[in-house]
């Protein structure tokens, strides 16, 4: 058990995966010599060489499209998209090609491609650098979508994403890159698509993913001091969603709040609210409430503190839930 930042944990996970399987390649813009704009791939090119840690031309569709061809050849490419808002030039290759190409091949060939995307706000950056695009990918059949919230999960989930035979979108909450946490490099603790109860409680279930998990935990701590017991669930996987864990919790609490940085409209939070309505209608004491970014483009950075859900907005929703 050592404490390391999430960026380093992903780096260590990539390294372990590359040692375990010589077919694992890492490719993207500025990831080799520079080590990535967030230094997640630092040192990998020196260790594994330029044919396994590939500095590509500046073309996102080219990165994902050529990764698909490499997967046909038997490689397991891990693509880095530099920022959330830069993934859209690759949208056709991800949504129309990668997500559908296994079905097109009628399972005669697997496409184990991982696409890493640093995402989310709270880093004070310019337009296109703070977005949360997870709903696009979670909506798309053929993709698995995961997002770690802490270094331990980041270390293990990247390795499980790489060994998965299916395409995986791996969303890295960039505001958590520099936060240290313990990793146990012996035991993963949970599998790729399991959600985890990260704080037990009895009054309200609070669900989040990525950077929102730490905000949710802080909110739960504040609520505890006010006599409200919040159970916090870290989704970890956004597609598929582990409804078993969520349903176990709401059967106990009867109330659920979903928190996310992404806009609420047609989002992961919306899907959870709809599914809880279908599957746990009679145990619910209150409607599922969403706390999310507003249905606007991500605002200029000086406004992000208001735009992004914080502990107050989460606790406001918890209060509204308890008032039913």
């Amino acid at each position, binding site marked *: 058990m050592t404490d390391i930042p999430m960026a380093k944990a992903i780096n260590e996970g990539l390294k372990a995966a590359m040692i375990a399987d010589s077919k694992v*390649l890492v490719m993207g813009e500025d990831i080799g010599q520079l080590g990535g704009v967030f230094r997640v791939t630092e040192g990998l090119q020196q260790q594994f060489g330029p*044919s396994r840690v590939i500095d*590509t*031309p500046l*073309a996102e*569709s*080219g990165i*994902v*499209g*050529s*990764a*698909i*061809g*490499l*997967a*046909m*050849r*038997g*490689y397991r*490419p891990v693509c880095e998209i530099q920022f959330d808002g830069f993934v859209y*030039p690759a949208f*056709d*290759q991800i949504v*129309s*090609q990668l997500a*559908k190409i*296994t*079905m*097109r*091949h*009628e*399972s*005669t*060939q*697997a*496409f*184990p491609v991982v696409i890493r995307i640093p995402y989310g706000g709270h880093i004070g950056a310019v337009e296109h650098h703070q977005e949360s695009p997870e709903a696009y990918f979670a909506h798309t*059949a*053929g993709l*698995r979508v995961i997002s770690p919230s802490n270094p331990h999960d980041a270390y293990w989930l990247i390795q499980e994403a790489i060994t*998965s*035979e*299916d395409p995986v979108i791996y969303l890295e909450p960039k505001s958590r890159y520099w936060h240290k946490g313990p990793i146990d490099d012996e035991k993963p603790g949970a599998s790729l*698509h399991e959600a985890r109860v990260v704080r037990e409680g009895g009054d309200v279930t609070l669900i989040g993913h990525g950077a929102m998990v730490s905000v949710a935990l802080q909110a739960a701590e504040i609520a505890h001091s006010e006599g409200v017991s919040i159970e916090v669930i870290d989704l970890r996987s956004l597609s*598929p969603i582990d409804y078993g864990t969520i349903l176990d919790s709401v059967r106990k609490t009867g109330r659920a709040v979903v928190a996310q940085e992404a806009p609420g409209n047609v989002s992961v939070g919306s899907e959870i609210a709809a599914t809880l309505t279908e599957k746990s209608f009679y145990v619910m004491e209150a409607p599922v409430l969403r706390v999310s970014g507003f249905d606007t483009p991500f605002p200029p950075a000086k406004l992000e503190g208001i735009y992004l859900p914080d502990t107050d907005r989460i606790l406001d929703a918890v209060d509204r839930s308890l008032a039913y």
Partner: protein
Amino acid sequence: MPYTEHTLRLLAPDGTLVVNDRTEAYHSAIGHLTEADFREFYRVMSVVRRFDVEAGNLQRQGHMALWVPSIGQEAAQVGSAFASRPQDHIFPAYREHSVGYIRGLDLVDIIRMLRGLTHGGWDPKKTNNFHLYTLVIGSHTLHATGYAMGISFDGACSTGDLEKDEAVIVYFGDGATSQGDTNEALIFAQSFQTPQLFFLQNNHWAISVPVRVQSRTPLFERAAGFGIPSVQIDGNDVLMSYAATRIMMDQARSGQGPQFIEAMTYRIGAHTTSDDPTKYRDEDELAFWQAHDPIDRFRAYLQGLGVEQAFFDSVATEADDYAADVRKRTLTLENPPTTDIFAHVFTEDHPVVTEQAAWLENYLSSFEQGPS
């Protein structure tokens, strides 16, 4: 712009062999071909054209939602496909029926896809590396380039053994040259010096938009901007298509990086059966290209070599028989099972797919039990 001063050919439009200083090397590249090879070129062009007509008829009779004709482009495809080597990987767009035939594809598999039975239709491992059709224009050029990067990383090219060194051909059209993906593929190919041939069939029309709207410059000249060697050939000359492909594929597999051929040809038919070319094309242009038909040209060449009429007659009979067999087999194709909705979405288990497959099975079986 049908042909230009740059267009290379070995067979003149009247079917006579004409060799000059510019084409001497290409002529040498067909030196090992025998009359038996030439007969095979003719046979495949004729059989696949007859198949193409039959498939169009099947569509008109309601047995397919759509057909994609390749009539007029047979020489570009047949010459280049025969020039590839067994170890090569072929990434077609969606009109390369002749190429598939040569690599061993059962052409009914293309019909299965266009009839709505599958999104793919074959396993490239069982069609001598003839990969699946991709319907988004240009997307597959990047898959081909990635595959070629993999060949290079594997050390499976540039060893100096032409019988083993692998390379990739990717087919695309003039419309695809406007797509970002095609341009990114050219950039990645030159960056990583992939063993790869970009084979552009310039059939002059991207549905209703003529090539002159796509480009103010001959398309093969664009390759120079990417640092990729290129030639423009007469795509209706099967011998030139063979020669240029043979030379450039062997350069690609030998470590000389990506290559580019623009084959000037023409889409005699519609883009697909959903299209009506009389709305946008003029008759003179069509007449010009019908007068430059690739099969007629090659027949004239073979007749000049002394090939007897009985051969052409037997090919015509074989083509009719093949078309009849395709028709028969098309009409007996069965619809896929409903489980195919879920079967191939993921390679590993997925709880949502499993749950919805079970739900559908249960729902459908509720009807078998009758109304409750």
